[in-house]
């Protein structure tokens, strides 16, 4: 269930926060303290990864299944390695090769995985809300590794963690998210996460790729600035997050040509100069070089794209550890 409506950040509690999330479905119901706790735990996991033998027995005897109904390399491998570094037994199920393609329902598939001993299921699904359905019908902890256009909470957490390695705090940072916001679970989760942490978010895209209803969020969505002009969005930004442009958006008629998108929205070295001199450049990957971002920028010294990938493993170790600690 979606647990919270509106900005969920409660006042800072006196004592250390207690982890209460049995599942990680989205971060719209995470408080600022809970996000901080993920960061602290991630830092501890990074220490583990820095050791000569990067393995701890934390999840020994636990079974983690990655259930992917959509192709993915980096997210799945990132979770798989995270679970293995924590000594969990890991099994990977890709929808194309399982009985899913024979028409087994999601609920039945999960029941099967649970009968096989899965304690944590990491799920990627092309349809929004699928992990919510899963969480209602199984006892295993569900971690959302991306659902439709809805949410990608672990990506947002690793993005924010990466920013935090370079900036003293997220509070007050100006973050520009540029690209296909309407269909981007990465953008949505980052909007929730960043606004909860006090950042100022501006989203930027041609109107056909902007989400509907942003002018009046009615307490249902965080307040963000909306721009169609990339130069205005980039102005004085501390962080620039570029999104991958899916080619099918052009085929679906939302863009006249990729060419015009490139002309209007590609992050070039010149455009990047509009942002603050120390602005960070992020991209969730995989990158379409010279479409949404110039190779020179993606590979440039302001880019932290590879850092994001590295931190992804530590963030996922942290979340596996935290959810495994919530007993039913």
């Amino acid at each position, binding site marked *: 269930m979606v647990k919270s409506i509106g900005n969920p950040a409660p006042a800072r509690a006196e004592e250390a926060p207690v982890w209460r999330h049995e599942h990680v479905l989205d971060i719209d119901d995470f408080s600022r303290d809970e996000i901080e706790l993920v960061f602290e735990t991630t830092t501890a996991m990074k220490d583990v990864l820095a050791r000569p033998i990067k393995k701890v027995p934390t999840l020994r005897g636990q079974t983690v299944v990655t259930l992917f109904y959509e192709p993915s390399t980096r997210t799945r491998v990132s979770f798989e390695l995270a679970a293995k570094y924590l000594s969990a037994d890991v099994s990977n199920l890709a929808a194309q090769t399982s009985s899913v393609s024979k028409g087994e329902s999601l609920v039945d598939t999960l029941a099967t995985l649970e009968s096989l001993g899965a304690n944590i299921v990491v799920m990627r699904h092309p349809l*929004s809300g699928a992990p919510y359905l899963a969480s209602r019908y199984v006892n295993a902890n569900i971690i959302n590794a991306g659902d439709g*256009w809805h949410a990608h909470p672990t990506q947002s957490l690793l993005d924010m963690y990466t920013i935090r390695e370079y900036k003293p705090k997220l509070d007050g940072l100006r973050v520009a998210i540029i690209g296909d916001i309407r269909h981007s679970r990465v953008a949505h989760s980052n909007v929730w996460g960043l606004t909860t942490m006090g950042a100022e978010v501006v989203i930027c895209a041609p109107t056909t790729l902007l989400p*509907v*209803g942003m002018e009046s969020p009615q307490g249902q969505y965080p307040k963000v600035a909306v721009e169609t002009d990339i130069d205005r969005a980039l102005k004085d930004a501390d962080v620039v997050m570029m999104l991958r442009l899916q080619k099918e958006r052009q085929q679906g008629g939302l863009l006249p040509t990729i060419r015009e998108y490139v002309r209007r929205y590609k992050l070039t070295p010149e455009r990047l100069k509009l942002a603050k001199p120390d602005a960070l450049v992020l991209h969730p990957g995989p990158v379409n070089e010279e479409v949404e971002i110039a190779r020179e920028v993606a590979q440039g010294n302001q880019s932290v794209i590879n850092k994001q990938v590295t931190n992804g493993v530590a963030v996922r170790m942290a979340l596996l550890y935290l959810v495994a600690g919530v007993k039913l």
Partner: protein
Amino acid sequence: MKDILIKGGRIIDPAVSRDETADLLIRAGKIAKAGTKPAADAIIIDAAGMVVCPGFIDIHTHLREPGDEEKETIASGTRAAAKGGFTTVCCMPNTNPPLDNAAAIEFVNERAAETGLVRVLPIGCISQGRAGNIITEMCDMAGAGAVGFSDDGSPAATAVLLRHALEYCRDLDRPVMDHCEDTALTDGAQMNEGIIATRLGLKGWPAAAEEITVARDVALAEMTGGRLHICHATTAGVVDIVRRAKEKGIRVTCEVTPHHLTLTDEAVIGYNTDAKVSPPLRTRKDIDALIVGLKEGVIDAIATDHAPHTEVDKLCEFGYAPFGISGLETALASALTLVHAGKLPLELVISKLTCEPARIIGGHNLSGTLKAGEAADVAVFDPNLSWTVNTREFASQGRNTPLAGQKLKGRVMATICRGELVYSDDALRKESL
């Protein structure tokens, strides 16, 4: 057939502006004249504190038979109707095979005679095979008992199809009932377009997708002089278009469902597949406009669009779930929430469930009133009785309702169809003389 005496209820018969506390006697299937003495063996219903009104007429019901009997049958659907106070249901033809010829209409009539508990009046397809190309044998179907024509579930596929349908059945005095949706705009759409859809990451179904088709239909009704009925209006814009059409004298009528009158797109939060319905639940602003539309007479009737599905159908990812709400058993109580909230008068709600829908489908021995000599189709309900919606107790096979577990006020206590007591609540006091 025993006499039935309904004692001491508040009789509301909007067709004749009657509203008084009185006894109502039913004899030999008809409403008896005032002052007639009941027979010694009459069934007596104690209706003190209850409303006695004409049986409800639902001009938009999906009974799923033939073809989808695991979702509903004529037997189960008419039992659900009786439980909801409905004595007549008009069943939509999007069955499998679709009701697109007289033999199919006759099949429904026969099944209804064998297994139905209340009156079933079939609606025939607009197009052969619901394929959207060629009009059906409307005269033949009307002769077999079809009371209207619709490709419901889908819109009349093209303007030219609707034009032909409106022209062809103009002399049949039967409405062409359109499900209004521009399917290019709703491709992949899951719920109302807006901030909730954005938040949930679900593709939006814009209000314009409905309004465009309503505007098209109204223009064709004006051009052809045919009788158009707009199914399940959901947006403020639709109310405006229909209002203007009626002001111009165009022959158009319009219905609204209880769920579109009472629920918003927020019901979808949590990916509740039981709140997935076509057209989708809209916004507070739309609800307010629909209520005004009912009051002004722009919207003629309340119809359920009862669309039962199995539990398995709805137990899936939101994007895979079929559209539809099982509505017959909650329709009255849902509509009464507007009465209890002071937004609509009770008499008006009853008229929108009785004489008004009777007028839309016309004739067929349906008057939607309690005048002496009329067929005895009667609903008795307690407007103030609170109850919790327990879908396990549904007579319908479809338990798909976003109202599951919710408390509603107003409950049908007895339903009489053609002079027979077809439903009575366990709590109803019945006695003999």
